[in-house]
């Protein structure tokens, strides 16, 4: 995208840089939240919770910049799409950070980690969710509509995972009433991962929209 007004070009580039930065932070947040949960690492969990503030600050920076671009430069066509998509993606990525924070918080409440078998159920799901966020952000960086579509189709896997974990946890609760509170926390974790998957899908849809001007068909957006 070459623009006659250099300042405009710089603004758009900066906007994309900010979104990418947010995406990188969200990826790391998901990964760390899962690590903290699995290992019972409270320091790491604290860090995830603290880092979420930075993500919020970045989101408001994106908001300001996007509004300024629209107000001052009156972008048209694909430029306008770019800015609108950036605005929406920033909001979604910020939500991913919130879910990571929620996972980190839930992780601290799980008791007697060593004897709590169901804990081994979630890492695989976390892996897929984190992969989706990563791919969605890669698709954004490369304006890659094909990769974006792939992310959207992966969402089904996460949903299926959630279903099976849900059933597993419920039967575990029935058999081991003493671990109900831990199992409930884990249920929240699975739920949050499922939401992270959905939000990664939203980012992918936005990427598709910014790149092609159309939302991908057969999506329930």
């Amino acid at each position, binding site marked *: 995208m070459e623009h006659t007004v250099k300042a405009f070009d710089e603004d758009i*580039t*900066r906007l*994309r*840089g*900010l979104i*990418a*930065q947010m*995406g*990188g*932070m969200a*990826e*790391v947040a998901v*990964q760390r939240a899962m690590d903290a949960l699995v290992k019972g690492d409270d320091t790491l969990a604290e860090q995830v919770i603290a*880092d979420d503030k930075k993500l919020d600050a970045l989101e408001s920076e994106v908001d300001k910049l996007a509004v300024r671009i629209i107000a001052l430069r009156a972008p048209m066509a694909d430029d306008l799409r770019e800015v609108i998509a950036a605005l929406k993606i920033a909001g979604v990525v910020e939500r991913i950070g919130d879910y990571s924070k929620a996972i980190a918080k839930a992780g601290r409440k799980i008791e007697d980690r060593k004897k709590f078998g169901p804990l081994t159920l979630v890492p695989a799901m976390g892996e897929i969710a*984190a*992969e989706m966020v*990563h791919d969605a*952000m890669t698709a954004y*960086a*490369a*304006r890659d509509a094909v990769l974006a579509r792939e992310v959207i189709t992966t969402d089904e896997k996460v949903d299926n995972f959630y279903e099976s974990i849900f059933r597993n946890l419920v039967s575990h609760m029935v058999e081991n009433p003493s671990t109900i509170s831990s199992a409930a926390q884990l249920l929240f974790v699975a739920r949050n991962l499922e939401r992270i998957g959905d939000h990664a899908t939203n980012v992918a849809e936005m990427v598709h929209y910014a790149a092609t001007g159309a939302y991908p068909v057969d999506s329930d957006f």
Partner: protein
Amino acid sequence: MEHRRPLPWPGLALAVVGSLGLLILGQQPWLALTVLLLWGCSLWLAIAEPPPVSTTRTNGAFNRDTMSELIEHSGTPLLLTEKGRIAIANQAAREVLGAHIVGQDVRVALRHPDAITLTNMDRADTTTVRGLVRRHDIWRLSRQPLGDGMAVIELINRTAEADISRSHTDFVANASHELRTPLASIIGYAETLAEENGETDVATRDRFLGTILRESRRLKGLVDDLMSLSRIEAEKHDQPSDRIDMRPVVERAARDAAGPERLSRLELDLADGIVVRGDQQQLEQLVRNLVDNALKYGAEDEPVRVVLEEGQAGNARLTVSDRGEGIAPEHLPHLTRRFYRTDPGRSRASGGTGLGLAIVKHIVERHRGRLDIESKVGRGTTVVVRIPLIDDGEQGLS
């Protein structure tokens, strides 16, 4: 260097001070004057030489095209950033990060928080980032600012090194798997025999007992190999000190490995007077493993040649070559890995533990030697071991 010949003011000042000093010390004025003149003239002559290297430095920015050409074909991914944007990405970088990154904000290419911290610094630094391009990969980033808001970022992939440390974990997993397989059949057959209450016919019973015996031997072989491997590894860093005359060692071990039924396939060509510092048991084991492998994987009617000679650069050179199917090139780098098999079924059937070459490699390393494996598919395999000869001079030609 705007002035072509700036006057060497400090030097001249020194000359003047020196001459004044001479005057003050009560020397003749003409002497002081001569010294001053000589001093000054020699300084003038010295700077009259043109500067050895005349760098024509254009004011300000680097020449982009030259810079781009310079780094383009480097195998290491390199980025040149200018005011937070990627000005140049070489071929390797474009392959890793995608061609779209040129002209983009550097955060679009490297979005990991640690990488962003690095790019925001105003001094040179290095950081290791996990999950930069793909999830779980490991990259070492080095950034060197060049001034004028420009910087070079170098990316080095460290994922492979991390894999090595993981291979130790794999080893334990593999070892337990390898141990469990023979155990499973031993237990299975023994249980069957126990349950039948002696009602099995003799032929079946013998067959079962044969299997149990074979698997037990395999298990023993495996445990022996594992133990010698761990022993060799433990003393990897202390070089053996015994003087070993190689010829009898190689001869005995090779015959030992062949056994009476395969002895006719063995061709020995062993030179005398090859003396190395070594551990006799381990050297025997090395030869046994190599000869056994060659006899096992070479064609059944082809000979196996074992050559011991004085190689170049003060090395003893042991060559074991077979004529057989050979090994496909893609397997060669992994042959010395524990439990690596090019064809798992055949290797197990012939009683291999998957540790033979790993042991050889460790023995060679302990003897400060080198191990080379060459193979041509359809022609055969040649293993060359080089171990330094004793170089204390007393080793004669005997």
